[in-house]
């Protein structure tokens, strides 16, 4: 970890010195509290921009902590485990950015499975990741990362993205070394974006009962018109031999013109982890809002109901977070 941290800092210093005119550095500072016993704070810093010859880079590091490790509050896109760690650190180029597409990425990046961008989960108004995107649920962790290469080929209307790499996960659910394959096909027509993804990797070795390969398939879709966005994912597969995880979520994100700085969000989701006596079948319903208080300051408030009980046993929680984005 120390070497990775040193490498990240050195890379930032080096590239900032070489290309100080065009690189952008920014930081997100988040503080929040949930009624399920979690107070949290975190910072994510990143440097991104061109490094020459048509290549661009992204370097990102995070530190975030919470007072309640059992709660999944605030872990929408980053681990809240009290450690500094590098996140996405990659270089990329769009060989052809208009018409036919050919884009290449190399380094450490989020697993390109379904709706996977940090911004999709971290800044859209939800304080928690979907249940199916929470590593502790034997699902596809939202902080799973790959070290490898990724190629996107096609057109904006239809593209195929293929990633070959090895797991370098952040957070608690970490997979051992292996060769991963992730394939995603995406179609875009007018206001509709549909994707189909497949992942083959090794499971998080949480116990001696874990064996075999992890294989997930998923379908994701987004539709947007007039400030109303509907999006969702359905993911099914096996986290390891003998068990299955199935689940998904449907989000409504409303930002109509008359709503000004307010974005209203809602989520319905389910998770079915079938593992005999250890099975769990949580359902969760979330309503909330993101309010842009100033250009770079936003409040996020979520009320959620989980009939089977949250971390503290209660079925209702109120999450509130404040995020300041600073661009240098």
């Amino acid at each position, binding site marked *: 970890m120390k070497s990775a941290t040193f490498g990240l800092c050195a890379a930032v210093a080096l590239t900032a010195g070489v290309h100080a005119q065009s690189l*952008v550095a*920014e930081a997100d500072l988040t503080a929040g509290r949930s009624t399920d016993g979690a107070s949290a704070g975190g910072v994510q810093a990143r440097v*991104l*921009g*061109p490094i020459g010859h048509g290549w*661009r880079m992204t370097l990102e590091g995070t530190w975030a902590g919470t007072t309640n490790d059992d709660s999944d509050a605030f872990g929408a896109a980053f681990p809240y485990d009290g450690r500094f760690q590098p996140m996405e650190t990659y270089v*990329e180029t*769009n060989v052809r*950015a*208009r*018409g036919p*597409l050919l*884009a290449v*990425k190399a380094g450490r990046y989020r697993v390109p499975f379904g709706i996977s*961008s940090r*911004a*999709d989960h971290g*800044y*859209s108004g939800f304080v928690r990741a979907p249940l199916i995107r929470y590593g502790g649920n034997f699902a596809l962790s939202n902080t799973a990362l790959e070290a490898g290469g990724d190629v*996107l080929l096609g*057109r*904006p209307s239809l*593209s195929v993205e293929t990633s070959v790499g090895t797991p370098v996960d952040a957070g608690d659910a970490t997979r051992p070394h292996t060769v991963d394959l992730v394939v995603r096909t*995406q179609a*875009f027509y007018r*206001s509709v*974006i549909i994707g189909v993804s497949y992942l083959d990797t090794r499971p998080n070795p949480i116990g001696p009962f874990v064996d075999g390969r992890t294989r997930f398939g998923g379908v994701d879709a*987004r539709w*947007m*018109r*007039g*400030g109303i*966005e509907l999006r969702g994912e359905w993911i099914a597969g096996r986290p390891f031999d003998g068990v299955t995880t199935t689940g998904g979520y449907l989000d409504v994100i409303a*930002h109509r*013109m008359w709503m*000004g700085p307010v*974005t209203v969000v809602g989520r319905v989701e389910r998770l079915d982890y079938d593992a005999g006596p250890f099975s769990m079948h949580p359902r969760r319903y979330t309503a909330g809002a993101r309010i*842009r208080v100033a*250009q*770079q300051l*936003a409040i996020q408030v979520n009320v959620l109901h989980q009939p089977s009980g949250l971390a503290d046993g209660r079925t209702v929680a109120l999450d509130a977070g404040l*995020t300041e*984005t600073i*661009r240098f």
Partner: protein
Amino acid sequence: MIVRAFALALVAVVTLAAAPAPIDLTGQAWAGAKPVADAVVWVDVPGAPRSAHPAPAVLEQRDEQFTPRVLAIQVGTRVEFPNDDRVFHNVFSFHDGKRFDLGLYPVGTVKYVPFDQPGLSRIFCNIHPQMAAYVMAVDTPFFAVTDAGGQFVIHDLPSGSHPFHAWRPGGTTIDGTTTDGASELEVRWP
């Protein structure tokens, strides 16, 4: 008859030759003692010819930021909003000026917005809160955006004394008048 025609032609040539040539107006914008980058300076010249279909302008989404940060255009210009990032963007403008919401679109896609009224539009991305830009639509072909040193050039400005205006991010719009024959202009916010 021939003499009369010759005389008229001679008068026309002399008149044209005597008309002052347009100038390139150069200048610098200041806020107190500091030069101001990304300020928009525009000059009103009523009756000056202008293109009915100005060339499209581009406000690019790259590296999770808009480029340029300030875009000045003539009213009637169509602005292209290409997404050159691998992540989705959702460009919108809900404040003053042109109001629109382009929705989500992926890398390689370009969406367009015609700016058919003068005024300032503040542009945001609903997914990336740090992304912000300004589009200033002005009802004149004589405008410029200051560079990093606060300097600007407005080309081919007809001679004469004209009203000018200047705006900068976070500042007010200031007004003034150019001096006939002067090719330099200093714009200063207190």
